[in-house]
Each structure stands twice: as structure tokens, then as C-alpha cells.
């Protein structure tokens, strides 16, 4: 497609920037590298907007009014067989265009914000190099033309996340967190890879276009194949989903995300709130037709995993005291919302409401969650602590942070007319029509969301008037401008963008409208949550402690995140290390090394035995030559032919 020729620069620019800053950063002044990175990101953002604009409003729409996917580029990279080959390219359709906007916008905001936030940090250039690497990988992930390219970038995203979490590599907790994040997601990706291999083994293609076509013929080869009583295609799609479970921090692989907050706060905003963690949602959305038509039972299971995660994370968030961890659990909960929304979706027209709502929520959530994290960053920057107990009464001292944070809280709680209301409302409506159980779970989670978010808000900005060492104040323009910009987006994104005509499962526009019953219910429960938080946390009082004591073990379990970290610890230490790793180590030391040593011994002996042949005497060389030829002649006029060609 000629018209999208420029779009390749969306990938090239950040990649080049990574190399420039990574290799040449140490020769630059920190400010230069930061500004350079930011300008490049700004150009990338403009290109991404252009691409999305062109796709949605001129090129993408086919004559019958549906949005069709466009392959802007496609290079063949590795060819295995005529049908099975790995390509690298750009696949532009509704969801990837939307993701381009989300990623570049949030990334640009984080770039600007970091100019202030990271000022004076050691390794400033390295930080910007890693940000560029991350942007490149994430953009590459969403525009992947095939599942293998997606996997490559998926891993790159994991690596850059690892690098950024461990940015303060002198801090042991940061190092531990980065390792944890990498290992947990990598463990999940292992299943993803198996899933990809199974999928390609049966369908003979990696290509998204072929795989997601309605009624794709390539799935016929799955027929009859099964394992442990479950059909092969269900296994495949479930394993692929496991990759998403890891990246999107769903139960039980969510343990890495709260710890990932050890990274610099802008990184948490970019990677662990707005973009990378929604990769799992994006993956399911990308393969949605397969899940819906080939394996509805897996999709159903996904919905339940999502709903349980949503309520679990919401409950835990109510008891955390580190403000970034509250936000982390809130992220887990909201992403689970999106996943659940996908599972309650159909394909055509209004039936596909869940799909649209999921993408809608992904979009609005990215902005208000980035806003929350950046706001939290501003607060942490001002009071030099992550703990709620060190905060309180900040509303007068930090007005910008106060107002923008409040807007984001209202949005995530789902109060009209902030963006979160619209997207969450669509999700609840879709759930209500498909599965009343899922609806109830999500509904309660929505109430809890309002409660813990306002608990957070009141604890930071009201509660009690603390005495501070240095009087906290709003940060400079490079940190405030992103906050204000994101706050504006959070206010308007809900009603300004007609998602139901742009991003739908089947590409056709449909009419969605606000369901008064659902809207009333959801605003109602949000208000209940807010009022609850107000009662407990607006002014300092004894009530929260009393409730905590009366709940006893339940409170303790919640506070300790239901002991998931301990369970995993037990599983790895006592089961995997003892029962798997130890025997493996034994095999490695005795069997494999033994074989290698044996090999070395035999090689050495054989080498000793034949060294006489290389005597340096020409006559002998000729003799060897001749005997060799004769042996071949004698042999091949006879029996060996039969053996080898059998």
C-alpha cells in the first residue's frame, strides 16, 4: 500500500533512537539525550496519528462501510516451507491503529514528564535509550502481521520492561523485582510459544490475516486431534492465552506486577499501567475470531479467570498502603475487566458490544491510569515516600496534582461524564446480556474500585495535616503539562470518540447507547464506594482500624495479598527446586557431563590412534588416496547402496 509508506518510520525512529542513545549516550549531555529522545517520540506520535487518521477516515473503510485490515509492509524473513514462513511487516487495522495512538501518546507524555522527574539521576541517557527500546518493541508488537513477529516483539517488550524495572540496579529490591517480572512473564511465555508452535503445526501459517478470517479453512486440520480428552485446538488457544496471562498479570501470574513498581514511576505509568500490560488483552482481541468461533469454551474460561482476577485485585487494593501498589492492583483489576469484556462478546453488530467495550476501556484506562501514576509520581517526588502514612492534607499544597488526580479517580470509579464511566458502562451492559454471574462479579468490583480509589485520594490529599520536612509543592512544567494534558483527555475521551463506529469485532459500525438501568446501577454502586471511602478516610478517625480488627484473618489475608507470593515461593523452592531441579542437576553432572567426558576420552584416544596416517610421506598419501577410491568402488557396486537407500 503506497499510502502507508511513511508508517514504517513509526518503528524505525524509536529503534534508531535506541541505538543512538544506547551507544552514543555517554558522549552526550543528559539533557541533550532527553530532548533528543522526546523530539523523536513526538515525531513518531505525529506519524502514528497520521496513520490512524488515514486508516479510520480515508483508506481503511471499504466500500460497504466495514474496516478491513491493511498490510502496509511485509518482508519475508525466514522461509521454512512454501506455506510456513516468518514475515516481518506492519498490519494496520482498527485495533492496531488505536494502539498506535495510545502507545505513542502515553510514551510521549512519559518522555516529557521524565525530563523533570528523572533530572539529575545517574544513567539519564540509559533511561531514555530504554524508553526508546520499549516504545519500539511495543509498537512492533501491535503492528505485527503474524503471530511469530508478535512473539519476537513480545519478548523484546519483556526485556525492556526488565531493564527499566531494574533501572536502579544498585538497589537490591529493584534487582529482585526485575528478575521476578522477567522470570514470571517468561515462564508464561513458554506456554505461549508452545501454543504458537501448535497453531502453526496445524494451520501451516502464522499470518493473522489468514488465521482470523471468518470461517478460515486452515482450522480443519485440527479435526479429531485431542490430548487428555480436550481437543487440540482448545489446548492451543489456551496455551496462547497463557502468554497473555503472564504479560497482563492475571491470576495466578499477577505476582510480578506489584513488585514491578520498584522501577521509576514514569516507567510504571508507561509500561505497567498503560501499554505493556494490555498486551494480553490485545492478543486476545487480535485472535478474537478464533476464540469466538473455534474455541468458545476457552473464551468462557478466560472470562471467569478475568472476573476472579478483577474482584481479587480490587479487594487486595483496599488494604495496601504503598500508593503505587494500590495503583498496581487497580491495574490488575482493570485489565481483568477488559479480558472479561472480550469473553462476553459476540461478533456481529450489537452482539459484539463486549469487544468494542473492551477496546474502549483499554483506551480510556490507558490515559487515566497513566495520569494516576504520573500524579502519584509527582506526589512521591514532593514528599519522598511511597507510603500513605507519610502523606495527607496535600490538596492545598499541590493543587494541580490534586485536581488531576481527582479527575482520574472519578474516571476510574465510573462517574458520569468522565471517560471511565462510558467504557465501564459498556462492559457491564455486555456482561449483563451474556452472563449474569460475570456481571455480578464485575459489578461488585466496580464498587470496590470506587472505594479504594477514593481511599487513596482522601489519604493523600485530605485525612490529616502532616508536617513535612520540605513543604511539598507542585512540580515544574515538564511534569505538570503531561498531567494536565492527560486530565483533559480523561474528561473528553468518553463522549468525544465514537468507538462503536470505529472499532468493532466485525469491522462494521453499530449503534450503542447508554443502558439507563446499567448506568444507574453502576453510578449508584460507585457512589456507595465513594461515600464509604469518605466516611472512613476523609478525616482521620478510628473506624478503619476497628473494621480491620473486626475482620480479623480476612483482613490479614487481604493485606498479605492472599499469600500468593508465599504460595509461589513454596512452589518454586520446595517443589520445583527440590523435585525437578535437583534431579536435573544430577543428570547434568553425571549423565550429560559423563557423556561429554566420555566423548572427549574417546576422541582423544582415536586421535592418538590415527595420527600415524599423517606422516608427511607423499607415497603414503597417494596410497591412502588410491585405497580410498578403491574401497568406495568395491563398496558401492554392492551392498551399501541397499542399506542407505532403504
Amino acid at each position: 500500500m503506497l499510502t502507508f509508506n511513511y508508517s514504517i518510520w513509526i518503528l524505525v525512529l524509536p529503534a534508531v533512537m535506541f541505538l543512538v542513545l544506547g551507544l552514543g549516550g555517554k558522549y552526550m549531555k543528559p539533557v541533550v539525550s532527553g530532548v533528543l529522545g522526546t523530539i523523536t517520540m513526538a515525531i513518531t506520535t505525529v506519524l502514528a496519528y497520521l496513520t490512524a487518521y488515514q486508516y479510520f477516515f480515508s483508506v481503511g473503510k471499504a466500500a460497504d462501510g466495514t474496516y478491513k485490515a491493511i498490510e502496509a509492509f511485509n518482508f519475508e524473513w525466514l522461509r521454512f516451507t512454501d506455506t510456513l514462513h516468518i514475515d516481518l511487516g506492519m498490519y494496520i487495522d482498527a485495533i492496531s491503529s488505536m494502539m498506535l495512538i495510545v502507545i505513542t501518546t502515553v510514551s510521549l507524555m512519559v518522555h516529557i514528564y521524565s525530563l523533570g522527574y528523572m533530572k539529575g539521576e545517574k544513567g539519564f541517557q540509559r533511561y531514555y535509550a530504554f524508553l526508546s527500546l520499549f516504545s519500539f518493541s511495543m509498537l512492533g508488537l501491535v503492528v505485527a502481521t503474524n503471530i511469530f513477529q508478535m512473539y519476537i516483539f513480545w519478548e523484546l517488550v519483556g526485556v525492556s520492561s526488565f531493564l527499566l524495572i531494574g533501572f536502579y540496579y544498585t538497589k537490591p529490591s529493584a534487582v529482585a523485582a526485575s528478575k521476578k517480572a522477567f522470570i514470571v512473564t517468561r515462564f508464561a511465555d513458554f506456554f505461549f510459544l508452545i501454543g504458537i508452535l501448535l497453531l502453526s503445526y496445524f494451520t501451516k501459517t502464522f499470518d493473522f490475516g489468514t488465521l482470523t478470517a471468518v470461517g478460515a479453512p486452515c482450522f480443519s486440520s485440527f479435526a479429531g486431534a485431542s490430548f487428555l480428552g480436550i481437543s487440540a485446538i482448545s489446548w492451543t488457544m489456551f496455551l496462547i492465552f497463557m502468554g497473555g496471562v503472564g504479560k497482563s498479570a492475571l491470576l495466578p501470574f499477577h505476582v510480578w506486577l506489584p513488585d514491578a513498581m520498584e522501577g521509576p514511576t514514569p516507567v510504571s505509568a508507561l509500561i505497567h499501567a498503560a501499554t505493556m500490560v494490555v498486551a494480553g488483552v490485545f492478543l486476545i482481541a487480535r485472535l478474537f475470531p478464533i476464540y469466538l468461533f473455534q474455541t468458545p469454551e476457552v473464551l468462557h474460561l478466560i472470562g471467569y479467570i478475568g472476573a476472579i482476577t478483577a474482584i481479587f485485585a480490587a479487594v487486595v487494593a483496599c488494604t495496601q498502603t504503598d500508593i503505587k501498589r494500590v495503583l498496581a492492583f487497580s491495574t490488575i483489576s482493570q485489565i481483568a475487566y477488559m479480558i472479561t469484556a472480550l469473553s462476553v462478546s459476540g461478533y456481529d453488530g450489537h452482539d459484539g458490544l463486549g469487544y468494542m467495550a473492551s477496546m474502549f476501556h483499554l483506551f480510556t484506562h490507558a490515559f487515566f491510569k497513566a495520569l494516576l501514576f504520573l500524579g502519584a509520581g509527582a506526589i512521591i517526588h514532593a514528599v519522598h515516600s511511597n507510603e500513605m502514612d507519610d502523606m495527607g492534607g496535600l490538596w492545598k499544597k499541590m493543587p494541580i496534582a490534586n485536581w488531576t488526580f481527582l479527575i482520574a479517580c472519578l474516571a476510574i470509579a465510573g462517574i458520569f461524564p468522565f471517560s471511565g464511566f462510558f467504557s465501564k458502562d459498556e462492559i457491564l451492559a455486555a456482561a449483563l446480556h451474556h452472563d449474569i454471574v460475570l456481571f455480578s462479579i464485575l459489578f461488585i468490583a466496580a464498587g470496590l474500585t470506587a472505594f479504594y480509589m477514593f481511599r487513596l485520594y482522601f489519604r493523600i490529599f485530605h485525612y490529616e495535616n502532616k508536617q513535612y520536612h520540605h513543604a511539598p509543592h507542585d512540580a515544574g512544567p515538564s511534569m505538570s503539562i503531561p498531567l494536565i494534558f492527560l486530565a483533559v483527555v480523561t474528561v473528553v475521551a468518553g463522549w468525544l470518540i465514537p468507538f462503536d463506529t470505529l472499532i468493532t469485532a466485525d469491522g462494521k459500525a453499530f449503534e450503542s447507547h447508554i443502558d439507563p438501568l446499567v448506568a444507574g446501577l453502576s453510578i449508584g454502586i460507585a457512589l456507595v464506594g465513594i461515600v464509604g471511602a469518605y466516611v472512613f478516610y476523609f478525616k482521620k478517625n478510628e473506624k478503619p482500624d476497628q473494621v480491620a480488627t473486626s475482620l480479623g484473618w480476612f483482613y490479614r489475608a487481604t493485606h498479605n495479598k492472599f499469600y500468593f507470593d508465599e504460595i509461589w515461593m513454596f512452589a518454586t523452592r520446595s517443589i520445583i527446586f527440590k523435585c525437578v531441579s535437583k534431579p536435573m542437576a544430577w543428570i547434568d553432572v553425571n549423565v550429560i557431563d559423563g557423556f561429554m567426558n566420555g566423548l572427549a576420552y574417546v576422541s582423544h584416544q582415536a586421535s592418538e590412534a590415527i595420527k600415524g596416517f599423517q606422516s608427511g610421506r607423499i607415497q603414503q598419501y597417494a596410497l591412502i588416496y588410491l585405497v580410498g577410491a578403491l574401497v568406495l568402488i568395491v563398496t558401492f557396486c554392492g551392498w551399501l547402496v541397499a542399506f542407505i537407500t532403504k
Partner: protein
Amino acid sequence: MDLSNYLLMKHELSLIVVFLILMIYDLFASDKAKKYFFPIACTLFLIHTVLGFFFHDSSTAFGGMFVAGPAQALVKNILNVGLFLVFLQAKTWLASEESIIKRGEFFMLTLLTLFGMYLMISSGNFLLFYIGLETASLPIAALVAFDKHRYESAEAGLKFIFNAIFSSAVMIFGISFVYGACGTLYFADLGSSISSTPLTIMAMILVLSGLFFKISLVPFHAWAPDTYQGAPTNVTFYLSTISKGAAVFALIVLLYTVFPVLFPTWQGILWILSLVTITVGNLFALRQKNMKRFLAFSSISQAGYILLSIYSGTAQGMAASVFYIFVYIFSNAAVFGVITAIENKSGKINMDDYNGLYKTNPKLSIVMMIAMFSLAGMPPTAGFFSKMFVFTAAMQSLSTASIILVVIAFVNTVISLYYYLLVVKAMFVTPSNQPIEPFQTEGYLKTSVLLSLFGILLIGLISFFYQQISLASFGL
């Protein structure tokens, strides 16, 4: 005769032009003007190399004697690139006191052998093939004995020429049998008229043994270590890559066009030879102390891997083998570049002399390490991809025989990793009382080493190269 036939020989004509210019220049230029002989020679050859990529003829000339096609052009281009690397590395050696008066000869002789290889690759008839083979062999003897003031060099030249004559005799003997059995020497006619009889099988083995000699497959390899060790280092590089590469392609042409009917037989022959070659090459390489002798055995073993891909008898196998040669040229160029640099500087050539090299010359050590990794087939170097393609090609038919072959080749890869890492260990780990002094590498040599380093790192990752090779291979 139609003179337009010559137009199909563009590579050859271009090479002859370069050859003639250089010869006249060398003969008639004043000593002062000859100061620029080396850069001019390199530039001319570079022009020839670049031009080569624009020649895309696909036809036969002289009644089927001469065949031009995409595959032939591709291989010629690869050989050109390799020879260019050889030239770049030869600067210091040729400028030395003993060699400077013979500098022109070096270029004449190598260009002549290259011409012979062109003919060998493009031939459509056994006569032309044989002439090409001889043209590619005899000047090499002179090249090997180039440092005639050195005893080893003269000895190596002698050993080479005797063995070469012997193998030529055997080959001619085989060709006469082929003619006797089929009454023609044209490849095109032979392909259809050969039938599987003991006579033709014997003829084939005799003919092929001439090529096996050039590729240095066990048991036709015995000349190689002595020759490689004694020859000047640049000539060793030339022998172990370019000359070998041309012979491999000639082997492919013979097997695919002349003896397709005998496919089961030659598959068996290749099966045995690649097994024996890889294993024996490895076993000898294990105990070498002299770098050049070590590389001689390593190159014998590598030849076995090339054979592994031809074994499958498919277009994919052919692509894999050509790709393997392409990568092998670059890996070897880097290794020989480092060896040449060190030999020029210190005259040292034993593995022990490399102890502690990393401390004094870190850049050279890193290049050497990457090249060794590539030879051993470690990702992400190009050597990994070439080995992977070779194994894939060999496994195409999932018969017991091919599985055994690939498994043994695999085990041998492990053994080879050991001795390649010995070099790395010497450079990085083993301390030394008298390490080689830090020094600056001379410009041409540095260019050559850098080019090969880029080759090693990029050829595998950028699929373009393999695809071009694979496209051309299907043309045969």
C-alpha cells in the same frame, strides 16, 4: 563460429581484462610507477567484483560447452568477494623484501586460477571442465611454493603438485570410462544416457575423487595439512576457502546434471565421506598446536558439513551448501586476517603464542573469538545459520541413514566447539610471560577483517542473502 557466444562469458572477459592490464602494468611500468601496483590491482579487482553482480546471462554457448546461469553467476560473485578479501590481506606480506619483486606474479597466478575456476563452474563438457580444473590447480602449486626461500613452502608446493597430478590422472582415467560407456562428454547428453551399471559407478567414483581431492575430503585429504601449513598464510586462506568453494560447486554441477541417475549411489558415497571427513578432521584438529595446521584440519571437517547438505540431493540442499561456503569464506577471512596480522608483526604462528592476547590486543582477540564462534556454529553468528540450514537440508528425507548422519554430525559439532574454544581460551584465559606486543593493524588488512566481521554478524540475520542464494539455486 558466432562471436556473440563470447558475450555470455562476461565474467571471464572482465577477469581477462583485469589480468591483462595488470600484466602489462607489471611488465612495463617503471619502479616508481609500480609503487601504486597494489592499490590499483585491488581497485581493478573490486571493479570486476562489483560488475559481476550486473551480469545475469542465462544461456549456453559454443554448442553446450559453456553454460551461464544465475547459479553460476552467483557462485562466481561469491568467489570474487572471497578473493578480494584475500588480496586485501596480502599487502604486508607482498611488501616484504623477498616477495616484492614477485608481487605481480601473485596477482597473475591467483587471477589465473580464478579463471580456471570460472571455467570449471561454467563448463558443460568434461573437456572444458578438465581444462578449468587444471588451470585452477597448477598455478596453485606455484603459489604454495611462493616463499621459495623457506624450506616448508617449497616442500608444500612439491607435495601439492605431486598429489594434484596423481588425482588428475585418476580423474582423466574416470572421464575416459565415462566416454567409453556413453560416447559423449557433454553434460546435457550424459545426464540422460548414463545408466546405473558397475562400470559407470566406477567411472563416477574416479571422476569425483578428483574433486574430492580439491575439496580435501577424507581419504583424499592427506596433502592438505602439509600444504596448508607450509604455504604462505594468504595462500592457505585462498586454498582453504576459494579453491574449495569452487570445487564444491563443480561437484554439485556434476552430481545434479551428469549423474542424477546414479543418485542412490552418490548419496551413499556422500553419506560415508561426510561422516568420515567430519570425524577424522575433528580428531586431527584436536591435537594441533600450529594455527595453520589446525585450520587445515578444521577446514577438512567443515568440508564434511558442506557435503552433508549436498547429500539430500535437493535444491534446498544446494542452496544450503552455497550459503555455507559463503559464510565460511567470511569466517575464515576473519580468522586468517588475525593470523596474518600477528604473523606479520611477530612471526608467531603457534597456538601458545596467542596466550594473553586479549590483554595486549583486545580488538583482534574479539574478532578472532567471533570468528571462532562462527566456525563452531554458535548463534547469532552466521555460522549458526549456515549449520542450521545444512542440518535442515540433510534431514529432509527422514530415513534412518540421514538421522544417523545428522546425529553424528551433531556430536562432532560439540567436539569442534572444544578445539575452537581452545583458541579463545588461549587468548582470554591463559596468562603469558611473553605476550604479543600491542600493535596497530595495517589499513588494508583491517578493512578486510572488518568486512568479514560484518559478514559474520549480518549475513545470518539478514535473510536477503539466503533468499538470493536460494532463488538462484532453483535455477539449476
